[in-house]
């Protein structure tokens, strides 16, 4: 198989498929993961191959789905729970933040909770305020939870495989706007290591630090900046927000002297705030300008496509903002 042309969605499925084949303790559970194949088709047909005991359709009970995964993970299974939309995380936050995240610590290291919570977020489908959010900040603010957010087809595969090898709970957030994106996966290649950021474009003038779908927006913007304005922007895909690979960020920012962070989540108290604060703290003497945050507006998302699209960073906004950093 090795090198494979595929989509983000199918790369995710491939990762699940391989994990289930090689490890009998891997089970999937969630709403519509079985017969329906997942709301976005990620788990399509897995039930046919692995049966209803390992691909478990659940009632609409988000809190208990996560709680069930916690109990399963503590007793020898490797559950992959699916939360259909990250917007529903509010119903699961107690099980996620008070149970999954804290069990190892509260119990003095006796046991971990090696589960993966797969979900998806972001705008792009006119789905309105309760189906379009980017809520990774809630997770990043919760010690004990790992957080992976793949931007590319390769990472859809490799990060999910890696998440399934973590000893601690991983929240794995896909982006609904990326499922049909095409790319290649080399299942045999050595992947970028878990917890390492990936420099997708080099550039000496400015470092754009981002993740998930905004990686692509940043790449488009970087291209524009280069071709139209002669500005060379590096684009760094963080891949995981916990662990956060600051060792890769630091030298890039020190060299460029200018950094921008881009996140689809709302700006206030979000991931962009953490990244900006940290870069500033660690690289202060090297910064020509304040670290610039380009993030989601501090508002809910509308169903109107026009308002929806403009509620989160666009390639244009990224490019325009970067340009203003070089007056």
């Amino acid at each position, binding site marked *: 198989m090795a090198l494979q042309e595929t989509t983000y969605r199918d790369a995710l499925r491939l990762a699940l498929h391989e994990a289930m084949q090689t490890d009998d303790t891997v089970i999937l559970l969630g*709403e*519509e993961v079985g*017969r*329906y194949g997942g*709301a976005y088709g990620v788990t399509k047909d897995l039930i046919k191959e692995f049966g209803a005991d390992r691909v478990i*359709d*659940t*009632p*609409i*009970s988000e*809190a*208990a789905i996560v709680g069930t995964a916690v109990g399963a993970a503590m007793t020898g299974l490797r559950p992959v729970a699916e939360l259909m939309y990250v*917007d*529903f995380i509010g*119903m699961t936050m107690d099980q996620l933040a008070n149970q999954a995240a804290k069990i190892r610590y509260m119990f003095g290291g006796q046991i971990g909770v090696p589960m993966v919570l797969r979900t998806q977020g972001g705008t792009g*489908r*006119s*789905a*309105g*305020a*309760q*189906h379009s959010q980017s809520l990774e900040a809630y997770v990043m603010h919760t010690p004990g939870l790992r957080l992976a957010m793949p931007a590319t087809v390769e990472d859809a595969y490799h990060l999910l495989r890696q998440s399934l090898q973590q000893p601690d709970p991983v929240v794995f957030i896909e982006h609904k706007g990326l499922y049909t994106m095409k790319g290649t996966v080399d299942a045999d290649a050595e992947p970028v290591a878990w917890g390492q950021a990936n420099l997708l474009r080099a550039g000496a003038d400015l470092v754009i630090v981002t993740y998930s779908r905004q990686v692509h927006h940043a790449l488009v913007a970087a291209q524009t900046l280069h071709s139209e304005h002669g500005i060379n922007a590096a684009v760094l895909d963080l891949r995981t927000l916990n662990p956060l690979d600051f060792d890769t960020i630091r030298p890039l920012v020190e060299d460029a002297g200018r950094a921008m962070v881009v996140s689809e989540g709302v*700006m206030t108290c979000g991931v962009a705030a953490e990244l900006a604060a940290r870069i500033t703290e660690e690289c202060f003497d090297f910064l*020509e*300008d*304040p670290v*610039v945050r*380009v*993030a*989601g*507006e*501090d*508002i*809910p998302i*509308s*169903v*109107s*496509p*026009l*308002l929806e699209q*403009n*509620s989160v*960073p666009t390639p244009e*906004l990224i490019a325009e*903002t970067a340009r*203003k*950093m070089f*007056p």
Partner: protein
Amino acid sequence: MKNTTLPQLYQEMRRVRTFEERVGELFVRGQSAGSMLHLSIGEESAAVGVCARMRDGDTFTTHHRGHGIFLARGADPDRMMAEIAGKDTGYCHGKGGSMHIADMGLGHLGANAIVGGGIPAVVGAGLSARHQKSGAVSVAFFGDGATGQGILYESMNMAALWKLPVMFVCINNQYGMGTRIDQATANPDLHERAAAFGLAARTVDGLEVEDVVEAATDLMEQARGGTPAFLAIDCYRFYGHARKDKSPYREELEEEEGRKKDPVLQAREKLLTTGLMDTAELDALDDEIAREMDAAIDFAIAGEEPQMQSMFRDVYAPTEPEPEPVRTRLDRILAQG
């Protein structure tokens, strides 16, 4: 009491049916905002039968499949359709869409895209009604799938404990997305759960709208009197979960059988056989409704998109400053340098 003769009930059901057909059309014409459109075709008797017993001042919340309920409570199809198209002329100025439509004037406290999300609000509305001695009932409409959500039981328990004028209406169309009710619970007799919490509880077949009206009359009276009630209405989801779903997880035979349980046709037949209306009258009525709903489509399509600046409006009350747009903020920050 309005809308309780069979001709009236038929008319309301037909309006719902035709409206939903037009929503499908709006989607096909690429004029809806997205594809998250959940049609209530096959469930008209639930919406119309229960709403027939609601009064001015009563309040309600619905699930994501709530067009029919809202319409049966008196919504303006124009503004509904415009909202579904994401237009400024819609009930919520294009911010809410199909799944988050509301109208305080009609007591609609909101549709909800969170399964179960709108249920506890009726407990609060029940507290208000009691406090205000308004005599109002508050009704939560939701699907069978919402019986998986713990908040339903928390809410029913509170309503029963506090003897609130509240009613829980479970529209059991047999499916939550691709999951049939017997794949979601070991005991599909859903009203038994409500009874165990101390509510007055029944299940009724939705085929005959008059049966629904009868059950709703009984239970709503109890609710109004302080014995909160639960009504499950059995019906069948004729089409896919949302506009793009072709229900591959259902047998064709099952669908055929299911679609035979058509409350609109059933009422039409009965009007004919009992002689209450003749074919010509019915056709004329159907045509009139078709024109009403065609007009709704036109209204929706003609409506303006919301203005960009409206994006920052209504996050907080109009008396409060709007959130600062990212762009404005960035300009200010970058202007320093």
